[in-house]
């Protein structure tokens, strides 16, 4: 791919690769929502996932699992999509960190409020 794909294109490509593997196994499958668990819901094995990652590397030219993301953190279709979206748009990862920081700040604020009440 010569130009960076959009978020929607990445999602469509990842979904397409997963559906192709499932089609080999159980025939044509419907639209994926993103919440499906790769193993528990769809029945994909680790090797199936490795195959999908190899296919996506050939198509998209990136492998987010080489350095950025641990494959063990990928549980759902949405997790896999996000890993590739972050590979193209690193700011998504930062916004994830921002969300985590905001959540931590909120928890600290609640703890302080509780201490004041005591």
């Amino acid at each position, binding site marked *: 791919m010569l130009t960076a794909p959009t978020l929607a294109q990445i999602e469509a490509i990842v979904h397409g690769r997963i559906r192709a593997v499932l089609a080999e196994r159980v025939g044509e499958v419907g639209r994926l929502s993103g919440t499906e668990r790769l193993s528990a819901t769809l029945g994909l*094995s*680790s*090797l199936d996932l*490795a*195959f999908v*990652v*190899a*296919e996506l*590397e*050939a198509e998209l030219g990136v492998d987010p699992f080489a350095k950025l993301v641990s494959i063990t953190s990928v549980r759902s279709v949405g997790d896999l999509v996000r890993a590739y979206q972050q590979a193209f748009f690193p700011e998504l990862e930062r916004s994830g960190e921002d969300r985590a920081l905001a959540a931590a700040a909120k928890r600290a604020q609640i703890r302080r409020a509780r201490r004041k009440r005591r």
Partner: protein
Amino acid sequence: MPQARKVALVSGGSRGLGAELVSGFLNRHYGVATLSRTKTTFITNMLRARKGRHFHWSQVDGRDHEALRAFVKEVGERMGRIDVLVNNAGIAMEGVLPTMRMRDIVEAVEVNLTAALVLAQACSRLMLRQGSGCIVNVSSVHAIRGHAGVAVYSATKAALDGLTRSLARELGPRQIRVNSIAPGYFDSDMVSDMAEEQKRRIARRTPLGRLARIDEVANAIHFLTSDQASFITGQTLVVDGGITC
């Protein structure tokens, strides 16, 4: 331009067993890609004779993971596929462990084991997409029998045998076979420094009464990579004239 002929990637193909394998695969009408740290006379002659036809060489240090991965990518693009990987590159590391330099230990692990892991990972991705492939790791009889003075070398080679068995289970469902070969002593650069008396002692202890010829070791690898071995995976083939039996 992708080619129809099968492609073999041999690490450490500039001399010894690696060079024998390069010639053997070319004679079997494979496209051959090889990497080595140095450009030997063998490589220079092959490049001149082949003029890029079905033969590709790059200067790569086995300790450079990125360069190894880039080499596999380049071979995949230039030759269209990779059917066979032979993890042959290795260094002999002699000396008792208590007095061995740490940097020598690390180098042996990097060249003998980590490089094989990196190449197997990169090649297996192509093989997964192809739905076929074959990997042979060059181990050693030192992985099977203990010998004083080769503890680090033995550890790296035994690790390759462990890798072989587990990787065979991982990749088998996609029709990728993984085996290793455990040669005994054979005529190569690695035994060139050995004293004649030591070679004679090894020969005396070997049921077949001699060291192996290099082609005898290469032939076992060609067998494992051929269709004749199509139902063999996860095994270590010992080619040692019976010294470990």
